[in-house]
């Protein structure tokens, strides 16, 4: 029931992994681990048992990802919508989470050996306080590890995440750290819970459902989406290979779309900066239209200042988030 499984791949799996690695590999894979309850029904077990099997499968999947050099994995463990389930089931899931995070803290030496950094993304204030404290401990303990990254989305929905990012930017404006005109797509991305990770290259959903269910909607706009009908607790190495192959088939066209989008973003930013500079020159100029050189200098100066402002704001945001976790930890120490 451990987080880390240390077995090697068998010969056939090793060969297939090497074949796949000859092509472009995703660096960040996201999983919607759907199908635990259906699996439990199918095997005539309790729901809770289905969720436990689901966790085991997660540990195994992380092992496969390590062998495939997939450095970062994000999983959808608990949605804010799941609070709507029966009290029994929600309590059961919270209890399971507590056990798993306790186990994680037990295994901290092993985690350090493998360099696993665990992050938890979501509106964590919605969770019971003792679970929040455990999460804070787990996050702080593994913070400095940097070989591979596991992001667990708990009490998470994408809309809440985006709204929170907007709220943080508004907080930045309130504190005078940034201006409303600094708000851009890039800045919003930096304010999401997932700001420490690149966007997922591949999103896999199991159990045959073909929707995103409010998961990483912003981050997966240009990701490869693979919907597989296998139930999560039955997920196999070959299912993962199939998904990666599909990623490889889509690689060129998605890369092209991403590049197009990035070009467009850069253009929009340049236009926005120019507009701000033009307004500034109009207000502070002496009535004469500024020449091209002066405009260029002003643009460069404005862009530099804007980037500095944004860096300061992001530092303040990081500090705010780190304090949330360290406060929870110290509270536990004092208690």
């Amino acid at each position: 029931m451990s987080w880390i499984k240390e077995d090697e791949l068998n010969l056939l799996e090793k060969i297939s992994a090497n074949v796949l690695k000859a092509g472009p590999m995703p660096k960040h894979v996201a999983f919607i681990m759907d199908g635990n309850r259906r699996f439990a029904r199918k095997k005539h077990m309790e729901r809770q048992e289905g969720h436990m099997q689901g966790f085991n499968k997660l540990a195994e999947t992380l092992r496969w990802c390590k062998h495939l050099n997939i450095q970062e994995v994000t999983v959808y463990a608990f949605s804010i919508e799941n609070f709507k389930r029966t009290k029994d089931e929600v309590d059961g899931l919270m209890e399971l989470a507590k056990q798993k995070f306790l186990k994680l803290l037990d295994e901290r030496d092993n985690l350090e050996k493998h360099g696993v950094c665990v992050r938890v993304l979501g509106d964590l204030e919605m969770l019971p306080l003792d679970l929040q404290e455990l999460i804070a401990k787990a996050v702080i303990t593994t913070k400095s590890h940097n070989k591979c990254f596991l992001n667990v989305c708990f009490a998470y929905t994408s809309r809440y995440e985006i709204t929170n990012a907007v709220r943080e930017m508004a907080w930045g404006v309130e504190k005078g750290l940034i201006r409303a005109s600094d708000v851009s797509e890039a800045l919003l991305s930096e304010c999401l819970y997932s700001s420490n990770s690149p966007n997922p290259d591949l999103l896999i959903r199991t159990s045959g459902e073909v929707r995103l269910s409010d998961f990483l909607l912003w981050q997966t706009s240009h990701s490869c989406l693979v919907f597989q009908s296998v139930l999560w607790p039955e997920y196999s190495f070959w299912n993962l290979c199939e998904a990666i192959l599909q990623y490889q088939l889509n690689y060129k066209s998605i890369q092209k779309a991403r590049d197009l989008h990035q070009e467009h973003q850069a253009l929009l930013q340049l236009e926005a900066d120019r507009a701000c500079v033009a307004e500034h020159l109009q207000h502070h100029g002496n009535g004469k239209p500024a020449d091209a050189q002066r405009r260029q200098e002003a643009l460069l100066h404005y862009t530099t200042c804007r980037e500095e402002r944004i860096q300061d704001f992001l530092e303040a945001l990081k500090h705010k988030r780190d304090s949330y976790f360290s406060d929870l930890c110290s509270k536990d120490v004092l208690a």
Partner: protein
Amino acid sequence: MALLYGLIWRLLLILVHINRALVSWVRVRLRSWKGRLWERAIAALLLPLALAGFPDHQKKLNHNPDANAVTGNRAASRRSRWLSDGRSLEKLPVHVGLLVAEEEPSYTDIANLVVWCMAVGISYVSVYDNHGIFRKNNSRMLEEVVRQQQDLLGVDGSKYNVEVLSNSCDKHQHYVVSCRPTVKVLSPEDGKQSIVQAAQQLCRAVENKERSSKDISVSMLDVLLRESKNFPDPELVVKFGPVDSTLGFLPWHIRLTEFISIPSHRNVSYEDLLNALQQYGSCQQRLGQ
């Protein structure tokens, strides 16, 4: 060793492409073979009766239905067939998104899809491609939809008057205002960019001390993103093309959207769309529970 793996990988990719090409070839052949088989069966059954006028009968079978003098009747029967198809579905989406992930879109085929959607009873249809081509050629899209409407639904297609909305320009091309099927042409600007614009609006309000950052909620952002047009979220997105990605389509609005893929929008048939709608009908949304 790495070279060997590289070769095997390339071989694997080629095999997958061949497999896909075979599958789509078989699909197309099966469809046309089934069609011809049906016509042949009818011809065979009617052969004894039509022996005398056989050449005439063959001509009738091969005759282009649109050139027929009873076009009006055919359009009416098509309309009622499509409407009953819509009614027979377990559930019908209120808003369908058509996501074209192919280069060089075909306006006729898209217009066909739009008209079929409306005929089946879908109230809102949006059309999207990630290059913004549809948005740039908004008026051409509209003309094509109107033309297909008349072709497929007949002169009495006025029941399905279309309201085509375009966001970036201030003028809306209204045809009829209330309770009509509405078509929206979308581009990547309607996705992340409109979320950023809503965020800027809220931040400006905070800058002007009209609002506090703590007031910002999911429902507030949702209202801003829905603008005044009150388009519901798409329940279904039909994706055309080989790319397995949403390519920036309305990230905020697709949280519960079902994604169904059709290999290509070129020469797409009504049956393809109906299959997708039937597949949608059998999806079960548990909404977190």
